[in-house]
């Protein structure tokens, strides 16, 4: 009845908890410190390639790609609560779809020569998502441990097929070239005039991670994200509230495997070559570790966890210099590779017992300590 047009509620400055609309509560950066610190972090990340050597850059680039994969797993496991041990399978699907699409048609392995990143990356994601949708009905029928075992089966299935299908994968011990990162004729995997190969790849992966992270963040703070959490917290209650379990579990698997597919496609572009035996149980466990160590149900936690897990091998390589009884070569006992595997196990156990909310949980506690200053609660 009022004649004045509706006015969009604005938040008053300096009053972070004074919400006058729900949109303000859901904003991505609801406080200025958050905006500033994310901005600074991004700026630092962009500057890093100019100050760090190529070896570390490669590692970081792989970390960024792993982050995309971890975000994917976190969506289905951390947000929607569906434990999936089959992440390596979806990564493999993505990796081979992309490699096959962009591969050289004249090579001995299958290849279609479509090297444009804008084609093979979404394609890898979509094919993986398709498999995710096929797997999803299992999730609507099974829960918890049973789902974990069934998804574990996927890994073995995949491992076997990829080992045998050598025209696609090149066969175990031989492998095939990874997808070619090319965009409108520009090859990221060949050093340019301004930037080296690794600097280019680093920046490419950084941009892609930013895009995927923002998309995921927008998804989880939307109606869909809230439905995921409802399913995770109590599926029966969620269904009674009108959340369709079948729809949202399928969606969770689809989105998660889309992310996994994209991550798989990008994962080996840095190394340039990959082998079908990489997509084994250990890889699934690594991704589970990323989610648990980083923090289940958080996007930034996924990134923290992925970076952490990617950097751990690099750190264990340094161990022999400090701990004399650890051997650097695979023939010694105990060697760095064994230490690495043991470390994953210990880290998962340690985090689950002492810090179930992961690195993100540590960050939250640290933040809350200062946020509640000068009180304790």
């Amino acid at each position, binding site marked *: *009845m*009022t*004649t*004045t047009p509706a*006015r969009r*509620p604005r938040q*008053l400055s*300096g*009053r972070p*908890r*004074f*919400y*006058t*609309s*729900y949109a303000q*509560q859901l904003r991505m950066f609801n406080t200025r410190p958050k905006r500033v610190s994310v901005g600074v972090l991004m700026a630092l990340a962009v500057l890093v390639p100019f100050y760090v050597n190529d070896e570390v850059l490669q590692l970081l680039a792989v970390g960024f790609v792993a982050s995309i994969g971890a975000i994917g797993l976190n969506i289905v496991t951390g947000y929607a609560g569906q434990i999936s041990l089959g992440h390596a399978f979806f990564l493999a699907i993505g990796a081979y779809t992309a490699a096959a699409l962009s591969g050289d048609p004249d090579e001995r392995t299958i290849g279609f020569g479509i090297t444009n990143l804008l084609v093979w990356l979404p394609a890898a994601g979509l094919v993986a998502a398709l498999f995710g949708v096929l797997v999803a009905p299992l999730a609507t029928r099974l829960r918890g441990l049973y789902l974990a075992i069934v998804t574990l089966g996927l890994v073995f299935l995949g491992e076997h097929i990829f080992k045998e299908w050598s025209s696609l994968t090149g066969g175990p011990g031989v492998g095939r070239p990874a997808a070619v990162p090319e965009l409108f004729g520009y090859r990221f995997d060949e050093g340019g005039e301004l930037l080296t190969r690794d600097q280019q790849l680093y920046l490419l992966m950084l941009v892609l991670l930013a895009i995927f992270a923002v998309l995921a963040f927008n998804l989880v703070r939307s109606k869909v994200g809230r439905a995921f959490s409802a399913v995770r917290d109590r599926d029966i209650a969620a269904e009674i509230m009108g959340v369709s379990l079948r729809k949202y579990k399928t969606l969770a698997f689809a989105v998660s495997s889309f992310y996994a597919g994209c991550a798989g496609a990008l994962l080996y572009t840095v190394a340039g070559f990959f082998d079908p035996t990489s997509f084994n149980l250990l890889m699934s466990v690594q991704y589970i570790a990323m989610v648990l160590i980083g923090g289940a149900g958080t996007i930034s936690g996924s990134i923290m966890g992925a970076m952490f897990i990617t950097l751990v091998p690099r750190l264990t390589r340094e161990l022999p210099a400090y701990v004399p009884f650890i051997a650097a070569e695979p023939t010694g006992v105990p060697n760095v590779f064994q230490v690495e595997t043991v470390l994953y196990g210990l880290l998962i156990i340690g985090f689950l017992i002492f810090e179930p909310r992961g690195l993100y949980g540590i960050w939250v506690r640290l933040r809350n*300590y200062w946020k*509640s*200053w*000068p*009180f*304790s*609660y």
Partner: protein
Amino acid sequence: MSTTTVATRVRDRARSRPRGIAMREKDFGVWQEVTWAEYWENIQLVGHGLLALGLDVGDRVAIHSENRREWLYADLATAAIRATTMGLYPTNPAAEVAYLLAHSGSKILIAEDQEQVDKVLEVIEQLPDLERIIYLEPRGIRRRYEDPKLLYWDDFLAIGARHREEFPGAVEGRMAKARPDDVMTLIYTSGTTGPPKGAMLSVDNVEFAIEALVSGGGFTSPPPHDRDLLLSYLPLCHVAERIFSTWFNAAVGVQVNFAESVDTVVVNLAEVQPTILFGVPRIWEKILAGVNIRTASASPLKRISARLWLRVADWIGSRLVRSGGRHTVGTRLGYAVGWVFLYRSLRDRIGVRKVRYAASGAAPIAPEVLKFFMGIGVPMHEVYGMTENSAVATANRPGRVKLGTVGEPHPGAELRIDPETGEILTRHRGVFVGYWRDEAATRIAKEPDGWLHTGDVGEWVDGTHVKVTDRMKDIIITTGGKNISPSEIENALKTSPYIKEAVVVGERRKFLGALISIELDTVGDWAQRRKIPYTTYRDLAERPEVRDLVREVVQRVNDRFATIEQIKDFRMLPKELDHEDGELTATQKVKRAALADRFGDLVESIYAPKGADAEVSR
């Protein structure tokens, strides 16, 4: 020329700034905003609704609700159609509701919810004048209660909308005829002694109060403006909250934010971070107690830092007290460093980070409490006024604060102190019209030449500031013939976070005694930390350890007073004082007579020849 009223002020603002924010109320977790245009629209609808129900000039509309948007709509709409608003405290029990509604002869009651509707339905036979009960919350009432007088708010607004279509401009027409001597509101005093009395405030009284307190910077200095934020949480039927929530809002467009309830004030304060904050002593004491308790139970580093910087704050406070509120280089420096470590975060947590003017009033407060807030950087001012003079009497001005006084008289207000009785008298345009239907009481309170007897005893300090000693009738005269002001001692006791209420007794006795009621939260917390088991309030209050705790407090307070003013013995009250039980007024003031009556044996036991309890001052 037409008379300016609060209603015309809102209308003019709605025309000049239709999209500005008039008020907010937290609903479903979000502060819903009401623009000036919406505010004015609602006032018109309610006004038309009231006209449709046949309300005439001078009729009374009673509002029995917590602070919320509809309170202001109804209040302003009533003013617009030249009727009279009367507010009831949400805590008023049925018997008092009956008295207030019958005495005021209210025709329409706006009741918030089932609780308030139940109260009035219980006593409906005693209320022949009451024609309609409009309820705001339908839950539990709609389609359950049959009483034909009941009317749901939304239906009432629909009636208003229909009336407007039929008679457009009827509300504005009535508004244009407003006269300065229209009685705008009836404010019932809390009644510590007898039944409540209804003070009539006219349009002119209110306009004077707005001039003195708002434009003149009497209660907020520099004067309030439309970018100021307020939290409305004290009962709106009290003159103090009415000034801040309704009159400040109407006069200069201060944005009013309604707290969800009395229990969430602390949380809401931290969310809203108001720029102007008025509190009664109880609120300030509670915030202070909260700070003490929560810093004491913080983790070590926080505790050490808080202890250090609170000590610095205490020093800053003392310096400010000496300089009247003006900073020196030293205090500025100390505050700047402390701001980084404590004051910024502490003020943010308790919701006073953006407060540019804080005021305490409506009851006496211990200077220590004010000093604490000054020390942590909250510009705190004690102000003084009462319903009968539209709250226009005195206030401490920024930079000229004298702790322990209530400040200087407002410009345009005359104030004198009776040389014989020491009573404070005021005279100005804001002095009320009279008590509703109580000629005798009006004659006692108001001299024919306009001087108002405040009933407070006071004295001049340095010729400029006024110090209120006590309520005249509360002064205790001991058998030694000494006049003692109990409130000063009581407030000193109440500074302790452990003491909620203290009542000093000793009228016509050899020495002073006290009845003490503990603060259940803090003493409970204290007992828990010392592993002292307890079950109920009474059990806790009567624990020997708690008695010792209180004895310590009493002794510390005694040290500051002359021998004659010291508490020689005290007793713990076995229950929490309560409005329902008639021990407190709606404004949480102690009804001394009721207390003396109910706990007479406790008082007697203090003066029993051979006290079983050990004496305090030994």
